[in-house]
């Protein structure tokens, strides 16, 4: 911090749809706003775009939400919004008696700190996985990564891709791959047809998703690809990279059926089982969390006004519950309007009816989200799908067998397993293995109880960063920590 950074009214962490829509409201209302994002360009994952001069991918589905989102990006640009991409926020501390200090690693590798009255945590989500023996072989990629390759670099990962997972994303990715010119010989859905058909209970709320699903499925069938429900991947095999997979059928209880294994040649497999909210920054800040399987697991707890348990700290988007792009947009807008009222930039009366409408729409999206998150729940037979040699912590090469030995010896919490096995002590800071650990503990035969184990603690830095940046940082006061 060589120069004095002015204190702002709002710092927003995350320039995905939630962060952007909050920024649009606030900057439009005249607030001093800073929008920080770790990506190459604002947009997060849902609004991922190629970096110029690379052009957009015309084969992508033209969703209304995406179009609306891209318009918001244009709008905030023309408002002159301060946006810093390639910036990793590493921690948040209270700033004196009121307000916040957010610090992070900037694009140039320097550490900087920004102070504000309010913060909005809109840090989004990351993909969840159900591991299997050999799932670390190169060639096994996530469904999200495939989508980002299509959106961000205009590339399909292979001429032929097998897709496997739970929830709506694998089907969407299969459809998008086919539209982009790849073959998808098989889509393996861990869920059942009945589970998916239950979506009709949501009525008109789900029509958009249903229609998308039908289109993708039609595309898959037309191309000769097979959709196999209640099918899981048991193993990935190959010499240094994926060459074939072993699939298995699941019974109605989600347990693998013996004798139902079959081998499928594949050198590229896309996998995905829903999303986990990126709660780490909120956790580090001290926000209370809550566990809700219908929101994707551990989420940041917010009240009806999207405030977290900490003063002047809001959370919007997937971070407070996985429910998709529409909810992110709605919550970003809500948070923006509510903070704008607090800052006296707009009067409460003027926005009351919009807020009421947003709240209603938010509840609807939460219902849709609940349905999708239920589809992504790990099957009851998870234990039988994960052989002991399966690597659970990819960063530290810790196997399911080692983890099971700890649970068998009485470890009930993720931190116990972390201390004993080093799971979660690597570069990803427990983001990939955390949700899997939780699922393993919860599907353990005599699992302690319905109470889920607490998540791994998150302290700063919530992302890895270069020690040199810390040394080069110029902090005014330093004396409190002498000896």
């Amino acid at each position: 911090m060589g120069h004095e950074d002015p204190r702002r009214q709002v710092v927003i962490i995350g320039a995905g749809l939630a962060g952007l829509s909050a920024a649009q409201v606030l900057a439009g209302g005249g607030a001093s706003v800073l929008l920080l994002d770790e990506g190459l360009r604002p947009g997060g994952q849902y609004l991922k775009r190629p970096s110029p001069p690379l052009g957009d991918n015309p084969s992508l589905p033209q969703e209304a939400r995406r179009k609306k989102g891209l318009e918001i990006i244009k709008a905030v640009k023309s408002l002159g919004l301060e946006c810093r991409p390639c910036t990793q926020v590493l921690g948040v501390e209270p700033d004196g008696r009121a307000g916040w200090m957010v610090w992070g690693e900037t694009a140039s590798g320097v550490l900087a700190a920004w102070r504000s009255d309010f913060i909005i945590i809109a840090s989004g989500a990351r993909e969840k996985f159900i591991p299997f023996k050999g799932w670390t072989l190169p060639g096994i990629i996530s469904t999200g990564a495939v989508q980002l390759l299509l959106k961000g670099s205009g590339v399909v990962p292979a001429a032929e891709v097998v897709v496997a997972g739970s929830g709506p994303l694998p089907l969407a990715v299969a459809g998008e791959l086919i539209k982009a010119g790849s073959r998808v010989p098989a889509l393996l859905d861990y869920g059942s047809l009945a589970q998916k058909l239950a979506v009709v209970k949501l009525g008109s709320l789900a029509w958009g998703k249903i229609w998308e699903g039908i289109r993708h499925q039609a595309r898959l069938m037309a191309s000769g690809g097979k959709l196999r429900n209640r099918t899981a991947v048991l193993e990935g095999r190959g010499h240094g990279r994926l060459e074939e997979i072993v699939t298995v059928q699941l019974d109605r209880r989600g347990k693998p059926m013996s004798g139902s294994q079959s081998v499928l040649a594949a050198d590229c497999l896309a996998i995905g089982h829903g999303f986990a909210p990126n709660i780490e920054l909120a956790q580090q800040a001290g926000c209370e969390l809550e566990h809700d399987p219908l929101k994707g697991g551990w989420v940041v707890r917010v009240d009806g006004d999207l405030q977290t348990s900490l003063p002047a700290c809001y959370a919007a988007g997937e971070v407070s519950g996985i429910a998709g792009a529409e909810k992110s947009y709605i919550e970003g807008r809500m948070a923006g309007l509510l903070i704008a009222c607090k800052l006296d930039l707009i009067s409460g009366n003027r926005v009351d009816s919009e807020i009421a409408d947003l709240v209603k729409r938010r509840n609807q999206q939460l219902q849709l989200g609940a349905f999708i998150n239920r589809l992504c729940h790990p099957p009851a037979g998870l234990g039988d799908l994960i052989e002991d040699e399966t690597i659970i912590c990819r960063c530290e090469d810790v196997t399911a067998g080692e983890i099971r030995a700890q649970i068998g010896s009485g470890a009930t919490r993720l931190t116990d397993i972390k201390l004993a096995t080093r799971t979660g002590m690597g570069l990803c800071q427990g983001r990939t293995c955390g949700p899997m650990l939780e699922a393993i503990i919860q599907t353990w035969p005599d699992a302690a109880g319905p109470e889920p184990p607490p998540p791994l603690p998150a302290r700063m830095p919530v992302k890895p960063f270069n020690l040199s940046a810390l040394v080069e940082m110029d902090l005014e006061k330093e004396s409190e920590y002498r000896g």
Partner: protein
Amino acid sequence: MSRGKRIKGIRRDSKVTIMVNGQPVQAYEGETLHAVLIILGIWALKASRINHDPRGVLCGMGVCHECLVTINGKSGQRSCMTLVEDGMEVRTYGS
């Protein structure tokens, strides 16, 4: 062996040349490094920490740290978060 493919109909204006494991490779400005490596069929990017097994792209969004390669002599760089630059020197697993 599976290689990625560039989707047709996308505007690719500006060529760059990068070195991958000592070989010159043509790519387009705006592409991320992991996309270019996948197009080359190079899926094995880093060695796992303990067993030194080959690992490649998983999350594609900077979280999992499996796509790490050496760029211009600096190891441990996330290829999915890096844009290709003319003259960039990249080394992957086993190179």
